[in-house]
């Protein structure tokens, strides 16, 4: 032997060569190509030094992307690793462990594109399409009944306020209040409603009629032959900010305030009759879009974590656990002091892989975020795609982003390598 066993570079060569050749040609070369390309402008002809990098850091879209990637990195990998760990340990205790792992693995078997579509649908805003809002609306409607005339509003003469529609002009005793409503379909007027007509107000009272002022060829503000009154609309008389009387319209849409002798009142229609039905939240809007996409990612990637952690768990010799139990440790102590330390290499691999995956995240954001919120949901890989491709794409700036992405991950790699070096010595 010409060298100590295990200490010969020459022996390493046949092991390393195939992988290194492929990596060098297809991964390293494009990386170097990108690095060089990042110093040139869009056409690739003109050297511009660090200008692409400066532009990147000053572009607000890139800054949003950075911010979002930070949120992703802080929240998502830890969540998935944690959930995966808990579930992996719990599954050891049941007989149908394989079936369970299969269920969790299934999202990974579906392509990212299809998963993105699934979640687009799950979080769809319309409650008759998106399951999340369907549940929310269902629960909400159990507790608060819907309004009678959602979306209806007075044609004119009223101002919308928090409390409802308040009349612009005050009324006094003897007045007849005409309240034409629009924004509601004549077909939907409840069956008992009778044709509307103008009431006559007597002395010391206020009378009025609330009717649906919508008909083909009818005149605005006038009661046309086919127009009907709206029953069940609450009407309030307000004086100096206080409600002094309240009533509800009858089947013909008429209402009466019988004892209004003093001064003026302002008529108000409380909004409870007109509120639009609750339609759930705008999950795919600017504020919720990133949590939504993160939740989809968690659904997909937990299967990844649990698979590897289960593999790690299965490699733990039972004796270690036995020894600890025999020594009188509780399950929790066994978990904390034996299982986790023995699992820590696997956990680290899983965690670091997830961190890198999150830094590169692209398809999910591209598919789930509608165009209107893509800039809010933006992440670095998506920004790089948008900058590089398409006509007039700037491959120089895109390459700069790729290099930045690489530099962001390097520390994680170094940390991992160092840790192992320390452990082995």
């Amino acid at each position, binding site marked *: 032997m010409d060298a100590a066993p295990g200490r010969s570079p020459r022996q390493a060569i046949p092991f390393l060569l195939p992988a290194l050749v492929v990596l060098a040609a297809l991964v390293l070369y494009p990386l170097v190509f990108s690095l060089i390309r990042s110093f040139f402008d869009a056409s690739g002809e003109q050297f511009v030094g660090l200008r692409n990098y400066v532009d990147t850091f000053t572009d607000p879209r890139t800054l949003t992307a950075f911010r979002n990637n930070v949120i992703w990195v802080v929240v998502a990998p830890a969540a998935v690793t944690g959930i995966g760990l808990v579930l992996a340990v719990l599954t050891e205790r049941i007989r149908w462990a394989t079936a369970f792992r299969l269920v969790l693995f299934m999202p990974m078997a579906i392509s990212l594109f299809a998963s993105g579509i699934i979640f687009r649908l799950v979080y769809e805003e319309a409650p008759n399409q998106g399951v999340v809002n369907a549940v929310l609306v269902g629960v909400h409607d159990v507790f608060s009944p819907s309004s009678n005339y959602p979306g209806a509003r007075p044609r004119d003469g009223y101002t919308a306020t928090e409390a409802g529609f308040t009349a612009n002009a005050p009324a006094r005793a003897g007045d007849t209040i005409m309240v034409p409503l*629009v924004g*509601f379909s*004549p077909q939907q007027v409840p069956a008992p409603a009778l044709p509307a007509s103008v009431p006559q107000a007597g002395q010391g009272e206020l009378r009025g009629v609330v009717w649906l002022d919508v008909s083909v*060829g009818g005149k605005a503000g006038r009661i046309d032959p086919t127009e009907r009154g709206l029953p069940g609309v609450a009407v309030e008389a307000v004086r100096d900010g206080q409600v002094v009387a309240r009533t509800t319209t009858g089947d013909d849409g008429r209402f009466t305030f019988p004892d209004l002798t003093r001064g003026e009142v302002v008529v108000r229609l409380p909004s409870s009759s007109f509120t639009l039905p609750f339609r759930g939240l705008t999950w795919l809007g600017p504020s919720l879009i990133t949590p939504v996409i993160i939740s989809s990612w968690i659904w997909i990637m937990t299967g990844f974590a649990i698979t590897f952690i289960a593999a790690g768990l299965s490699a733990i010799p039972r004796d270690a656990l036995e020894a600890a139990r025999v020594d009188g440790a509780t399950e929790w102590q066994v978990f904390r002091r034996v299982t986790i330390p023995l699992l820590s290499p696997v956990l680290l691999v899983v965690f670091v892989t997830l961190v890198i995956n999150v830094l590169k995240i692209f398809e999910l954001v*591209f598919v789930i975020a509608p*165009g209107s919120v*893509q800039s809010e949901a933006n992440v670095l890989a998506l920004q790089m795609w*948008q900058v590089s*491709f*398409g006509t007039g794409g700037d491959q120089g700036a895109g390459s700069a982003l790729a290099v930045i992405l690489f530099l962001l991950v390097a520390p994680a790699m170094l940390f991992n390598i160092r840790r192992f070096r320390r452990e082995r010595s």
Partner: protein
Amino acid sequence: MRKQWIALLALTAAACSGGAAGTGSQEFKGQSVEVVGPWTGDEQKSFEKVMAAFTSKTGAEVKYTPAGDELPTVLQTRISGGTPPNVALVAQPGLVAQFARAGSLKPVNAEVEKAVTEHNAAVWKKFGSVDGKLYGFTFKTANKSAFWYSDKAFQQVGATPPATWDDLVKTSKAISETGLAAVAVGGADGWTLTDWFENVYLRTAGPDNYDKLAKHEIAWTDPTVRKALEELAKLWGDSTLIASGALQTEFPKSVINVFGEPPSAAMVFEADFVASVISTNTKAKVGQDAKFFPFPSVAGSKDAVVAGGDMAVQFKDDKVTTELMKFLASPESGQIWAELGGFLSPNKDIKPTAYPDDVTQDLAKRIVDAGDNVRFDMSDLAPAAFGGTKGAGEWKDLQDFLADPGNVDGIMQRLEADAAKAYGK
């Protein structure tokens, strides 16, 4: 005399479209051509029938690759890889210009040019020319000035299709009184908003200014742009007129909102391909329940059409490629697809009766009749970073405008900034 030849060709094409034994010259038997296009699904099947006719006629085999939305990336990488297809169908003239200037495209040969001049209005030749040379022609076009409406909703208010923008606003108000939103806007897809803008701008500013803005020879802060945005705000700014959640509604959903059950809007603007969404996703019948009126004139403008299209270009100039280009430029090829539905062509020598129904015929006729007053979709003429990127550039700025139609100045400045960056390169 020519009519007889055309009839004969049409008969031959019809006979060949069933994939029967070739009756053509078989001059190119044994050779094959590669075509890359954006069409998938049913459209792919129709195009493959057109290609089958070519095979019957000339004996050359055709391999079609559907690239969908990734067409620019696929073409760019294939060019880099040294294996471009023979012919590609490209929807963005900007991309065509980019390829032409980079020397990847071959200009069409004299026979093809003659056919293009003969069968189309002069303006179509302009669309396909780069720096004075003709590189392509529009094979399939889309009429992007069609306003679709639900017959039922119009009858409910006794409305007739509006001919002017002010009429449109009035009709919209009448419809919204019945509780139905007047217009569904697919705001999540920024390109629908650019089509709205282009139609209004073409009518308020005229074709010459349209051309200038498309080349960025006038700025987006120009008063003509302001006028167009203000007209648009008359409709978009009234929240009772636009179906809610527009920014999260994708284009197909906006169509379903009008023609599905239960409807939440009465009209949807876009192009002829709305018909295919109607027939796939709803039970409404095109021509009976679903009709269209041409985009209304604004402030007394004349008839104008904004059109989109897929342009045939060639990367090689061997004989079989030229033969294919000739075939595509002739009315024969378009006629085959026209009969199958879902296809419009600017080729004025395709018989109107080839189109399968009245609505399609009408749409096609309007394009051909508009002659030189047709303008190509401006966002497709612009660099993709401005006019063709999800969540960025013109698409995002118009989405912001939809969210806040009062902010005309702010949006104009943003549009100008994005355009300057994209065109400036």
